């Protein structure tokens, strides 16, 4: 089975949007205060959730066709976008531990999906 380019684009786009979901979640977390009313009023969190939902719709469409061994590791590329945004927007430094740990994780995800084939 071949993996159509449209599936790859959908999944990559999903991971890209999802990584911004994480950024807005972090922004929402910093604005989080006690009461439930204020939680529901937290537009950063709401934006993050909408971005997550959007990304999952793109994943569902993308993953419905093509090889999961190819597509699933692309989902984990979202973690790489996320540490780039974290550096850009929150000044979180790149460290050897982050880069090494992330490389191991992405490699591990790829291997698990090879094992699922």
């Amino acid at each position: 089975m071949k993996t159509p380019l449209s599936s790859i684009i959908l999944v990559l786009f999903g991971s890209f949007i999802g990584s911004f979901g994480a950024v807005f979640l972090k922004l929402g977390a910093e604005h989080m205060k006690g009461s439930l009313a204020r939680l529901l009023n937290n537009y950063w969190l709401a934006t993050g959730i909408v971005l997550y939902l959007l990304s999952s719709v793109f994943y569902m469409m993308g993953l419905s066709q093509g090889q999961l061994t190819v597509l699933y590791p692309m989902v984990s590329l979202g973690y790489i976008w996320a540490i780039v945004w974290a550096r850009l927007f929150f000044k979180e430094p790149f460290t050897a531990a982050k880069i090494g740990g992330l490389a191991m994780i992405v490699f591990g995800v790829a291997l698990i999906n090879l094992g699922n084939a």
Partner: protein
Amino acid sequence: MTTPTVVGAPVESRSEGRAFLLVFSCTLIGALAQILVKQGTAQLGAHVTLGQVFRHPGLFVSFCLGVITNLKLFIGYCMYGVNTFLMALALKGRELSRLYPIIALTYVWVTLLSLVWLPSEHMNFFRSIGIAFIVGGVSVLGMKK
């Protein structure tokens, strides 16, 4: 894995342990949610391509409706909702770039759960090495600076 419950540990490291524990539980809930969503999607019989959506934009709407009307999808997405809240709690005051990649542990749970539940699934070389790499990577991210 770092254990957070050292008596007399400074508040900073204790709350860091709490953050890791929160993300850790997120991965367990997320794995169950993922299995439900996968089964729900299979029930919907959704095979939509980008081209089809461009030709028939209504497909996008019916796909979103499926999330509300299918029980498994609904419960799965509720669990994702709980997860999002727990993740936000964990992220408050903590580094996104250290906590977010830990979510990859979800892959480990999904693989292990499907080995337990589906008799047709077996552990193999790639799966075991893949799990080892993810757990190793997460441990590296969790290490004290």
